[in-house]
Structure formats: C-alpha cells, structure tokens
C-alpha cells in the first residue's frame, strides 16, 4: 500500500507518532479503523508518552 492511498486521518496519526515504516499487514489493519478508533489509538500512544515522563522524541540534522 502506498502512503498516498492512506486516508488523511491515518496519515496524520502516523505523522504524529513519527511512524514511517510499518509492515503492510499493520497498515492494512489501520486503514480499516474509523477516525474515532484512530483517535483512541492516538490517545493511548500519548498516554504511553506521558508515562515515560521526560522522554520525548527528537529529530535533528545539520547540513
């Protein structure tokens, strides 16, 4: 499945969670979820982040 075939709300979820590469099988499940179900999934992810206290993802590059 190509990224451009993903519903916007699934793409936005992957972006929020900084997930770039998922197995095809997982993507196929994600696209079956409703926007409300994806939001629930995102809430769980955010709760995991908060439970990790000061851990946060960083991205940086110099060029």
């Amino acid at each position, binding site marked *: 499945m190509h990224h451009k075939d993903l519903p916007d709300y699934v793409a936005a979820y992957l972006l929020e969670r900084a997930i770039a*590469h998922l197995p095809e099988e997982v993507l196929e499940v994600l696209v079956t979820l409703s926007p409300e179900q994806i939001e629930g999934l995102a809430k769980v992810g955010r709760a995991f982040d908060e439970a990790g206290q000061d851990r946060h993802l960083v991205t940086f*590059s*110099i060029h």
Partner: protein
Amino acid sequence: MRRQLAAAVGPLTTACTALVEHPRLREVWPEYLVLQHQIIRATVPLTRAALERTRELSDPLCKPLAEYLEEHVDEELDHDEGLLDDLELLGLPPESVVARMPPPTVAALVGAQYYWIHHHHPVAFLGYVALMEGYPPTAELIETLAARTGYPKESFRTFSQHAELDPGHRDHLDETLNALPLGEPDESAIVESARTTAVLAARAVSEIL
C-alpha cells in the same frame, strides 16, 4: 508530497532520540560529530554536481532548479570547516578527523545522491536537502546536549549556527518546491530520495551507538 516528506523522517527520529538518550553520550558525541563532518564535507561538492547536471538538461525544471542550487551552494559553504573547529575543541585534531575513512553507510548516503543526479534527475537531490535541512537543532536541544555531555557551549558552535540559519534555508527550499513545475514522477523522486536519506542517516547514527 509534503506529508510524505514529513512521514519519511521516522527512522531519523528514532536514531536521534537514541543518541540524545545514550548513557555514554559524552563518549559518543565526538564520534557523532566526526560522522556529521564526513557527511557535511560532501554537501557543497554534491550540490555543485547537481547544479552541473541540471545545466546539462533542458526540461522545464532546469532553470529554476539551477537558480536554487546556485544559491544553495552559497548557503552551505565552509560549514565543514566550522565542524572541524568544534571537534578540535573536543581534542580531535582536524588531520585525524579527515584521515578516517568514512563508513560504507556514509558512502551509500551521499553516493545514492550522486547516482540519482547523474543517472536519473538532479531534482531527486531536493529530497536529501529537505531531510537534512528540515530539522535544524533547537536552542533547547543544544542546551540539553551541552548539559548531558559536559562539553563547553563553544564546542556546539556549528549546531548553534545551524539552529540560526537552517530555518531560513528550509523556507528557501519550501519556496522552491512551491515554485517548481513538479510532475508526479519528480515528486516521487524527491520523496524516495528523502526516505533513503532518512534510513541511511539513521543507520549511520545507529552504527556509532
């Protein structure tokens, strides 16, 4: 395309987070800077190669792409020299840094761009620039790195310069992407280039952890 470019960064995020959280960050940090020097010292020659190839072609992209690349060379001049100065402050003489053979992952990262520039289309190089210049370090990150490594702030001069300059360079690229008459194959090439850059840059960082 912008959404796909943003989604491409995942592997680099994972590697950067692992670097910043590394329990022996003080030991690893000079190795990271050596790695960055190995990558950055190729930036101006790579951009010039893209410029020369662009000038050889004659499609509608070439004129505006060449104009961007000409300006991009100026944006990137001498950044590698500043990084050598930072490394010297950490006790690594410049000659010892440049004497080290860059690992195959760095050769693959930069080499992929040369391949696409010469054997596909230099527009692909914009994916490399988008990834490398799209995530400049923040002042907060530099504070964190200085605190966790215990190295003096002066040794983060190159990082500080990029924190200041790269947002402007990123805007310049954004304006260029908006203005270029990109077709779907061009956009796909840019996205594939960015994805490859993220994967290989992340792998290069992971190899020193």
